[in-house]
């Protein structure tokens, strides 16, 4: 009897271990990435019910934890992690063999948005599965526009120039006392969005510094002007920014589609927001009414003991066309405003649907998708983050008057970058 039990138990354990497989995933933001991954896991479980996808919400310092794990040869790391597109090249440079080549694993990259594939490509290898787009727009509060005596309908869907917007912002500020745009001064996303709208970035294609470009100088001048006219509301940190937006501190902001979730998290915002194309910066060649900010992608660690399973999961849910996967992309768009970059999925019903949460039920996803087509292939380079910080620091000092001119500001940013990099 006892022996029978023991054998039974052993069999049960052996079978259990054999049958139950687990994939662990690290990402952040429960309303967005974690939500999307949970939906993906549900789709995968339809065909592979014995696989558990364990999703960990790493709110703070995810990159620091991954760095520590990579230094320890992969100890303590999950199978899959989410990386911001602008972060990943740093990891490619510092940890060359840390990720699984997914092109070799058979992912068809011709069906994924090319501007997302750029940063994850190294030589002939491609390492990631592109997730969401960072297509940007100008978010405006129609109630404040009306209060200022402006008619929102005459701006809806219009391509504006920044000079139009400054006049417009001055009117809104004078009538409602609301600054036009709230922004996070610690990373200054807004400045990069404008520079990006000209196709430029911190670095040139060969990796050399590109801050002395026309696009940068004009963008810094533009924001100094906005700042001096009292049209900016500055906060430090993500949570304070969301708080500022959802406590009516400004008449709008300039950022990407992934703000849908945060705006929708407050029911009182219903019917108030409209989103118009990113304004055009004049006098810079290549400028367009579209830009990109952020966006992330999934990567599999080479140290993972479940590599094959993790790759299969990403490939079969995120980069394969079936009825279920298309429905999955359609669901996360509606559920979280997560617009994937898997091209066959862009025809889903929610992509063209009107969204009653926005002013006049604007079909916001259709608009963002349309603007996304104009986004050029992005170049970040491994040293994007220190440069982003240095630029944000210098521009803030320019606003506060410790730096006097645009040229001084650029020189200060370059100097800080070089110090941090030890160059």
């Amino acid at each position, binding site marked *: 009897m006892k022996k029978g039990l023991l054998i039974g138990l052993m069999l049960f354990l052996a079978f259990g271990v054999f049958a139950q497989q687990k994939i662990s995933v690290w990402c952040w933001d429960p309303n967005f990435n974690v939500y999307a991954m949970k939906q993906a896991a549900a789709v995968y479980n339809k065909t592979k019910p014995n696989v558990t996808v364990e999703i960990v919400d790493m709110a*703070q*310092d995810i*990159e*620091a934890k991954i*760095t*520590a794990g*990579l*230094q320890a040869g992969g100890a303590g790391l999950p199978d899959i992690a989410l990386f911001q597109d602008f972060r990943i090249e*740093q990891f490619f*440079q*510092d*940890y*060359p*063999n840390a990720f699984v080549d997914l092109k070799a694993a058979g992912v068809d990259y011709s069906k994924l948005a090319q501007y997302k594939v750029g940063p994850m490509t190294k030589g002939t290898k491609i390492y990631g599965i592109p997730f969401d787009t960072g297509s940007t727009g100008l978010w405006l509060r129609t109630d404040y526009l009306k209060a200022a005596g402006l008619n929102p309908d005459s701006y809806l869907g219009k391509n504006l120039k920044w000079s139009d917007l400054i006049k417009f912002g001055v009117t809104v500020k004078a009538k409602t006392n609301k600054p036009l745009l709230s922004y996070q*001064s*610690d990373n200054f996303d807004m400045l990069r969005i404008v520079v990006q709208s000209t196709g430029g970035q911190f670095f040139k294609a060969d990796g050399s510094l590109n801050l002395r470009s026309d696009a940068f100088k004009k963008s810094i001048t533009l924001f100094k002007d906005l700042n001096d006219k009292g049209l900016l509301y*500055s*906060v*430090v*940190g993500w*949570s*304070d920014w969301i*708080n*500022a937006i959802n*406590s009516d*501190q400004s008449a709008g902001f300039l950022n990407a589609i992934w703000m849908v979730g945060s705006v929708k998290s407050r029911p009182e915002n219903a019917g108030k927001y409209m989103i118009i194309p990113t304004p055009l910066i004049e006098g810079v060649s290549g400028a367009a009414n579209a830009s990109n900010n952020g966006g992330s992608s999934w990567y599999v660690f080479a140290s993972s003991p479940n590599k094959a399973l993790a790759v299969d999961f990403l490939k079969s849910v995120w980069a394969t066309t079936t009825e279920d996967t298309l429905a999955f992309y359609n669901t996360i768009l509606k559920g979280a405003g997560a617009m994937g970059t898997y091209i066959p999925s862009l025809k889903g019903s929610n992509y063209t649907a009107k969204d009653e949460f926005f002013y006049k039920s604007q079909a916001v996803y259709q608009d963002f998708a349309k603007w996304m087509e104009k986004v050029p292939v992005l170049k970040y380079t491994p040293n994007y*983050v*220190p440069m982003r*910080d240095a630029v*944000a*620091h*210098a521009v*803030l*000092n320019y606003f*506060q008057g410790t730096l006097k001119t645009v040229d001084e500001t650029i020189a200060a940013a370059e100097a*800080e970058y070089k*110090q*941090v*990099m*030890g160059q």
Partner: protein
Amino acid sequence: MAQRGRHERYLNRFGWFCVAPSMVLFCLFMLYPIVSSLYYVTRKWKGMTDTFIGLGNFVRMANDKIFQAAVGHNFLFMFIQVPVMIFLALLLAVFLNQSIRRFRGPLRLAIFLPSITSLVVVSVLFRVLLQTNGFLNNVMLDAHLITTPIGWLNDAFWTKVTIMLAMTWRWTGYNMVFFLVGLQSLDRQIFEAAEVDGASKARQFFTITVPLLVPIILFSAVTSTSGTMQLFDEPNILTWQGGPSNATMTAALYIFRQAFVVNSDFGYATSMSYVVVLISGVFAFIQLRLLGGERVKK
């Protein structure tokens, strides 16, 4: 005699046996990292690459204005916040020691509580209170104490004040507990004698209490100084990565960012850590000399 020697040897061996586990752990997790980090000081260890550069890391440090400014911020916090906090802790301890017995327990708990509360929770709370449109600014605006909101979290000057306030809030109670213990061990007769001689409370405090508590003040000062040199949590979470524009960047935060956030540059981070340890050591030594006086020489 022989018997006793053997027994002593046995006791010795048993003693070593008892401390062996902690010694093994100490060697593994303290001694080994410290010794091996000495090796990395001379190397450029970035990500997976590792090359010898001699004193290159120190040359870089000598030219790194951000690191120098960060150490400067540590000094600033230390010279202003540590004395204020210790004085405050002493006052509170004396007050609690003399206050009505009934409230002593709850008061002591209330003052000690901040130091055992999770800093993440504290920082979230402080951020809500201190935002531009936060509680504190609103109260002060309503009371007409200020006309424009104070940038507690985004002004280069006020963020430093915020950090010092947060540190004081968090650690005063912790230090107070040591002083309280010290006070309770003092002989009441000295104070009674002083009372008879007509010494005021303030006089008693400065000429009896403070001198008698010097060893404890010394302990507090040394631990607070080294704690301030390692200041990390407040500037990382409360003022958001040492912001604005590195105005609250501290040495420890810069070391962390070099190693884990922007650079994966562990060699440089290790070298900076050595400099910070050295500085802390020098300060501890100076404090021991100044306050410890005779006690140290013996």
